[in-house]
């Protein structure tokens, strides 16, 4: 089957099988910033925003995403012009191997879009589906708070 997908603000026409996941369709079409982790909705490495809602793309059939807005981490910012959230993760040392980072950043973006001044509990709740094997989460949470402060100050 074929469908129109709007990824990072650009329209694409993708061909795919009806039983393909959004994760596989995106990666097959070059969006390898969407990482494949567990394929069962546990790790959050494959998270994207689908119509502004955080989802695990490994548990979304691509067919249900036709016509919807999809945001991957590369749609937030680039190496030369990073989003404040991406910069905060770098500045706070919240990235080690980096595999979980795209999902973490998108979960943070979803949180701060809805709640610009989150409590610690809000942060833990918002990132409850994103697992990191490297950092122990402390610096990730610092990065989320730093990003919230910077966005609040429009930095």
């Amino acid at each position, binding site marked *: 089957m074929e469908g129109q997908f709007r990824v990072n603000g650009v329209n694409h026409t993708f061909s795919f099988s009806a039983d393909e996941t959004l994760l596989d369709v995106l990666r097959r079409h070059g969006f390898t910033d969407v990482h494949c982790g567990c394929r069962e*909705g546990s790790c959050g490495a494959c998270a994207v925003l689908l119509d502004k*809602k955080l989802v695990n793309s490994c548990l979304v*059939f691509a067919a249900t995403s036709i016509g919807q807005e999809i945001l991957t981490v590369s749609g937030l910012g680039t190496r030369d012009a990073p989003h404040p959230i991406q910069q905060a993760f770098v500045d706070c040392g919240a990235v080690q191997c980096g595999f979980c980072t795209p999902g973490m950043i998108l979960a943070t973006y979803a949180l701060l879009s809805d709640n610009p001044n989150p409590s610690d509990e809000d942060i833990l709740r918002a990132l409850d*589906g994103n697992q990191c094997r490297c950092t122990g989460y402390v610096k990730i949470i610092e990065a989320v708070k730093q990003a919230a402060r910077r966005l609040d100050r429009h930095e």
Partner: protein
Amino acid sequence: MSTRSPSHREELRMAEMLWIRPRTLSEALEYVKDESLHVHGGGTHLLRNWKGSIRGLIDLSELDLDFVRISKEWIDIGAMATYADIVRALRNSFPENVLVDALSRSASTALRNRITIGGSLALLPPWSNVLGPAIATDAIVSLEGMNRGLYPVADVQRNKLLLKGSLIHSIRIPVRHSVAVFHTEKRVAFDYPSFTITICADFERDLFTNVRVVITGVADLFARLESVERKIEGCSPAEVNSRAVCASLPISFTKKPLGSPQYLLELASVQLERCVMKLVSLASRKRG
């Protein structure tokens, strides 16, 4: 050729799965009659439990079943409403409703944006916290299709044949129960519950009435603890002896990752006692 031969299975696997997107409920119900087709709500449980070839999926997203309607007497929730939708809608109007607590603690943020209440009630995925609260709040399922009608949630769970040739349209919850407690027993934050406990009650004129105590995850899937309910019904907070209330529970467990049946029973008794104590505390605070 035998259907079990490898080459025949390969043919099945390679056949393109059908993606069906009915525009009306009656159109969807025609497709539901075909047992080789599966209903797609949020899709999360389907993908986690992919059993090889499915001939086709019936995508209900065009049927406007994602509503949450709140009135003075009822909360009506469409089958396609996600856990996140429901929590968001109820949090403002009924923050103390047990569904707000239960659903906001299910699975993860990303999954709550996809898990639908209809899918959860039909398939009972391991992360679902909806069954206990749905039974404890006397929720009613509205089915369309072959078994069209209104059914208590417990009846649908005890008789899954009701779902054959039918679709869950919505769930209706009466607005009552001024105090509620929900507990989910998990090893770590993102884990599947070994059991859940839900207690709902009205609390007026210093007395508990309409008490409902439901435990899920037991050997029989769920149990309404009527013996516990009777010990709280009609009592004031001061009269409730939580230890006595929770003695000798008529339930059993199977072995789970959390522990043996004996351990789980011991744990459930302790947690139920704590839930009753919390209910008493909530009621006392309401009294002021």
